[in-house]
């Protein structure tokens, strides 16, 4: 249903951009962390629109469930919320830098000929993306398209096994590093 999807897209865009602006502009750091969670949720909505449901769920699980909470924890423990979100002296260069980049990116996005795949193929991609994540939904017969496809899990541990292991190593390093940092010097 393209109408519904378009509507959803516009709503999500407005919410995401407004919330993102809120994150960087609101003075109360706690509120800006909450707005950050809103940004995350709307990005998850975008993922659903792009029929990447698995990614959407992961986005909510990790960003909203863990990262936002970590941020809020950090804000709470460092306790300088009300005065917290003050801008520094680089205000004008930052605005200029960001807007220049924005103009450039939008120009590139619009002027480039992306050669998107045809609409019929796009719908098949939708179905394939949906189904190759976790098998076909119960009760529905799987379309022939998805069966030839490699699922996300297989992709991760077959083709992308090296980056996968690298990321695991990174996580481990981060875990140890976090522990080392958070451990107080005395104990």
């Amino acid at each position, binding site marked *: *249903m393209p*109408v*519904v999807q378009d509507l959803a897209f516009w709503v999500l865009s407005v919410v995401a951009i407004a919330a993102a602006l809120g994150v960087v502009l609101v003075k*109360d750091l*706690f*509120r800006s962390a*909450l707005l950050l*969670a809103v940004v995350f949720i709307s990005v998850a909505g975008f993922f659903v629109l792009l029929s990447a*449901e*698995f990614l959407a*769920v*992961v986005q*909510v*699980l990790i960003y*909203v*469930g*863990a990262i*936002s*909470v970590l941020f*809020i*924890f950090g804000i*709470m423990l460092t306790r300088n919320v009300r005065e917290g979100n003050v801008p520094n002296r680089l205000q004008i260069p930052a605005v200029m830098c960001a807007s220049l980049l924005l103009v450039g990116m939008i120009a590139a996005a619009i002027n480039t000929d992306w050669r998107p795949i045809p609409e019929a193929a796009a719908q098949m991609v939708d*179905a394939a993306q*949906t*189904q190759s*994540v*976790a*098998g*076909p*939904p*119960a*009760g*529905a*017969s799987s*379309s022939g398209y998805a069966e030839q496809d490699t699922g996300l899990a297989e992709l991760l541990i077959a083709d992308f096994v090296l980056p996968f292991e690298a990321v695991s190593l990174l996580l481990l390093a981060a875990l140890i590093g976090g522990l080392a940092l958070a451990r107080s010097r005395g104990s």
Partner: protein
Amino acid sequence: MSCQLASDSILYANGIYRLVYEIVGVVLPCWVAYAIAGLVFAFILVNAVLLGAAVITWGERRVLGRFQNRVGPNRWGPFGLFQPVADLVKLLTKEDLRPEGSDRVVFSLVPVLMVAPLILMTAVVPFAKNTALASLNVGVLFILAVSSITSVAIFMAGWSSNNRYAMFGAARAVAVLISYEIPVVLSLLGVVMVAASMSLGTIVAAQALPFFLVQPLAFFVFMAGMSAELNRSPFDVAEAESEIIAGYHTEYSGVRFALIQAAEFGGVGVVAAIAATLFLGGWSGPWSEYLGWLWFLIKTGIIVFLFIWFRATYPRLRIDQIMAFSWKFLLPLAMVNLVVVTLEVFLLRGDEGVLTHTDLAIMAAINLAVTAISIAVFGNLIKDRVTFRTRQPQQVVVPGVSTIEVS
């Protein structure tokens, strides 16, 4: 003009939804029918959660009363069944208080944010054959993701209340939520692995033998983790009323309190429903075509009763002990379960990739032994950590008095 749902839609499998959609679709345009059918189902879900919460408040108070040799609420209606109504009326007529210095917007948002994830979680639970709103193929993951929103809501409650007890409660609740997420996810991985699907409908169908027999360890970890996430005894530090009044919702009153309370008890119901689906076989049972909802309700009731029973019996752990329990006991158990189940699935699965009934029975036998052994082993491991080294008795001895001492 009539509308047909595409057969690969996630809503297709839902019988009720399809029925409403097709009937409304006869007279109205398809997108209106789409919305109306959705609203009908949302109405059912919201009512299921809130009514379930009401029934559980009543049931908990009655059963807890009987555990304590009391009667429990029995004035309103037969067996006090209308007690939740009376409570609600009372709470609705209360003055709406907001503490001074609180963050107005955030404070008001919290009750909604507490209830919403529950209703979302219910959306993927099959009450009977083909009745889940959306048989999402990432159902289990969806439940975990949505339930994690609660931690943000709790933080918002604690922060915006401008009360130190609320802050304590929020910090504790979030710490518990984060630590118990991991063992719960790991225990669910085993389930997903055996069922070979993350969709709850498929998991129910895969339970030729209920999974609490196949993976008792996962069931144990899940129940323990979930009672921690729900702030149920013995892990109810977040709203330990003897320590921090009511934790993060200390400052809430009136209808906001009612909503938070509904979220708490509704949470018990929803988690019980999920546990019944994942581990007790959901709606499956004799004549499940027609009586599926009954089996489902009975199994949910059993889990709720278990929660109440634990609450009636156990004192509360301290926050650091709860963390230790999660990281040092539940996490290793969940990992043991994961490794064992992986090996079993790898070895027992036939060529067509399906586990037969016999396979499940073999797994059940092995896993029961593994459960007993690993609980004993890890229990003894943490026992040394948690029990206190007995000091040498050193007392002022007064002669001529017969005494008895702590063993």
